[in-house]
């Protein structure tokens, strides 16, 4: 059942939002069909969200393996990222083939940049997930709050609508969110005629990721002895 859900979740999201959107506004956005538009941004976003959230549980799930002294908590984090990336990649490929078979144009405009941005996003999600995992290891009650915060993130990261449709007055604040940059960049690289909003920059995401990666690895180094001791978390 769990395996089926992995495939059904993104398809459900797609169906519901496509239906809603076509009822309200029409069938296309910047020259592409709405389901294609959503899929391109939503699949990476779901991957990043799952990665960041699942890292919070990876210590608890793999606690018994720390009996082998070769295995460190960092290994479980990295393994989780690899697993999530493989699953998401497979699901994405399946849906893309399904769409192409149905008759949608699924070609990617700038594949190299697209792949690079995806990788950068995964690195960002890994750093974020590790920071969250270290925070919730110290304060387990925050887990629920963090999960709730990710829900509105879905809407302010431009997953369902182009960032240009978000309120202009709030743009300086919304642009602080690296997820918005990532979804916009990815769309810009896949869709040939997509106009990104002003202020989207890959430099911002890279900088943000590097700082976060530094923080996460540094605090991991400081906390590593607490993480393996069985009596905690």
């Amino acid at each position, binding site marked *: 059942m769990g395996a089926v859900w992995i495939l059904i979740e993104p398809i459900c999201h797609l169906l519901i939002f496509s239906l809603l959107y076509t009822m309200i506004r029409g069938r296309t956005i910047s020259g592409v069909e709405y389901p294609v538009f959503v899929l391109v941004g939503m699949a990476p976003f779901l991957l990043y969200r799952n990665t960041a959230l699942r890292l919070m549980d990876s210590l608890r*799930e793999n606690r*018994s*393996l720390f*009996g*082998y*002294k070769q295995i460190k908590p960092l290994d479980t984090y990295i393994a989780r990222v690899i697993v999530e990336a493989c699953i998401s990649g497979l699901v994405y490929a399946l849906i893309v083939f399904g769409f192409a078979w149905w008759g949608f144009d699924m070609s990617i405009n700038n594949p190299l940049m697209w792949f690079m941005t995806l990788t950068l996003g995964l690195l960002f999600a890994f750093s974020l997930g590790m920071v969250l995992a270290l925070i919730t290891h110290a304060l387990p009650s925050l887990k629920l709050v963090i999960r709730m915060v990710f829900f509105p993130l879905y809407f302010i990261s431009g997953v369902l609508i182009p960032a240009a449709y978000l309120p202009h007055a709030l743009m300086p604040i919304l642009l602080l969110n690296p997820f918005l940059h990532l979804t916009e960049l990815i769309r810009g690289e896949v869709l040939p005629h997509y106009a990104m909003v002003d202020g989207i920059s890959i430099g911002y995401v890279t900088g943000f990721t590097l700082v976060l990666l530094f923080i996460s690895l540094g605090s991991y180094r400081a906390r590593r*002895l607490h993480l393996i*001791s*069985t009596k*905690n978390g």
Partner: protein
Amino acid sequence: MFELRNVTKSYLTPKGRRYVFRNLSLAIPPGKNIGLIGRNGAGKSTLMRLLGGADVPDSGTIVTDRSISWPVGLTGGFQGSMSGRDNIKFVCRVYGAEGEAMREKIRFVQEFAEIGTWIDEPIKTYSSGMRSRVAFGLSMAFDFDYYLIDEVMSVGDAQFKRKCRKIFREKLKTSNVVLVSHSMSEISKLCDIVLLVKDGEIEIYEDVIEGIKAYSA
């Protein structure tokens, strides 16, 4: 040989820090089978984990020049959602047994633990007896200088215990054991030296009978 130098180990609990050992120093002579005895919660398993390097002291060092197994405990170092076979493969890869060596070890564990086709079921569906049989068999499949055995042998049925003792006697010709047990007959049968863990202190008894007497007192 083990040497503990100024070892302090504490755990952070919701109610504050609890010290298991404070500034503990001792040397355990080489080539002995070590029995760890003490009341529940005295720190036997913690000491064993420290010796095995599965846990790290807050301060101080633990020195040894021998190869030491992972702590073989009742819960077993297993990932519950993976099958027994996958768990065995995982440990084989961690310890560098690939290809034919890995298949050999899987066969050995399957036969020793007598789990038959259960080997392809997830570990979390195993009974505690099955799990400890797999855990014990898996550690026996590898060669170490010291085996860390935490209560595993006490759960099996009589026949399995006999089997354990047999393979153990074989292994103990070349290796040693660090054994945690509440069964004094087992301790006196297998161990040459007893470490009594009590109130954060460790008393070494070269004479096993004397150690057991001190524990029972």
